[in-house]
């Protein structure tokens, strides 16, 4: 089954880190990504630009309404994701707990709705 690991963390915390700490953080993410690749579980992953760069779109009364900012104005924002393919939720949760994001933020694990029918 595929699961999306969504990393929510406090915005702006990254910029406050020292260069050495940032390097350590990146190395941890690289190592995690490598481990996922080696196990064959990694489907895709990306880091996102901060929520200050987000734009929301919705159609209201037939007109598209474009607004600056993220959908939910919360302290923690979606900062990146890993899409993985593993046997079951326990395996997905095990990867989530290894994800560096679980240490500096929260990792939400969601099963992907399979469209194969």
């Amino acid at each position, binding site marked *: *089954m595929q*699961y999306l690991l969504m990393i929510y963390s406090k915005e702006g915390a990254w910029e406050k880190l020292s260069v050495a700490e940032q390097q350590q953080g990146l190395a941890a993410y690289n190592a995690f990504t490598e481990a996922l690749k080696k196990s064959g579980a990694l489907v895709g992953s990306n880091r996102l630009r901060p929520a200050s760069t987000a734009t929301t779109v919705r159609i209201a009364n037939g007109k598209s309404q474009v607004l600056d900012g993220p959908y939910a104005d919360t302290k923690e924002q979606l900062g990146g994701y890993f899409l993985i393919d593993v*046997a*079951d*939720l*326990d395996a*997905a*949760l095990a990867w989530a707990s290894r994800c560096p994001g679980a240490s500096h933020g929260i990792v939400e694990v*969601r*099963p992907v*709705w*399979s469209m*194969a*029918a």
Partner: protein
Amino acid sequence: MADAIARRSYGKLVAFLAASTRDVAAAEDALADAFAAALAEWPGSGCPVSPEAWLVTVARRKIIDEIRRRRTREVAADQLLLIADGLESAAASGEIPDRRLALLFATAHPAVDPGISAPLMLQSVLGFDARMIASAFLSSPEAMAKRLVRAKNKIKQAGIPFSVPNRDELPGRLDAVLSAIYAVFAEGWADPAGIDVARRNFTEEALFLARLVVELMPGEPEALGLVALMLHAEARRPARRNAAGEFVPLSQQDTKLWSVEMINEAERLLHHASTAGAFGRYQLEAALQSAHVHRCRTGEDNWDHVVNLYDALLQVSGSPVVRLNRALAVVETQGMHAALAEIEALSIDPRMAEYQPYWAARAELLGKIGAYREAWQCYDVGIGLERDGAVRRFLQRRQSALPH
């Protein structure tokens, strides 16, 4: 024959079927069909050599048919043919001494809403129906059914594996398991004469399972507390009804009928639990039982101690049932009016509206302060809610003893 298997093996069969598909609801539906087929076929063709295997085969065929019918992924049907691996082998490996207990721990997965874990165990492993589960958790059957469906959907859609946890995962799942075991006991306790076939073995079964938990996790004070609590309650079973089968309240029970052996064991276990220094719900409830037993045997007034124990229990559980029982102890320490005020304060809790002991307690106190008309009405509601005939007749006698 099929009925006996349904009672004994229901949970095991559901778990077995669901282990490969992770679809508990579909497993239950298929098993229900298989039992129906058994009831139709066995009387004519005779009971098969291995009835459980027969049921699993029929049920699995039903599941596969259903999946084909729904035209979901082709591969799913093939997956179904694989025998459940993890669950069965783990349950048989001996780490957890009883298959049902293994399944209880399997059901208490942390990704399942903790509030629904115990009801889910009762339904999927222990074969309770929705009405029994709803009454055990003071909920309406409709609301409980909805929550159970939601939990089963999550298990299926999120791919939660139905597998037996490692030893280090057990403590985190203990609360839900103890809660389910206690609900089984309470359901059996509601049948003091042991005449209801469907509930006859529940108290024994609960004690058996709780003792296994103690064996599996010897250091857990709450597991010891639960065994002590259940032994205390079970010890009084012979005294709860008189020769005519009528209800006898605790204060009027013949203490000579209580099982000294069970009480002594309960006290020993409770003492052992207390040495761990971590007091929880079950130890406190066992300590309350112990205090009641002591008072009834010696005639010593220990109501202040009882109220203190209820206060501690309220802090850990906050249950309206505890609040109600505490109010009844307050009668003895602060008098009728103080107790009645606490009971009236409970009336805003919707869970009390259909809880017989609440109405009986309220009626009793109203009667004692001379509010006979209101007492009469409260007895009416309590009597209307009670399903046990002996308790109903007891309340009717109390009601008709009110001065007119």
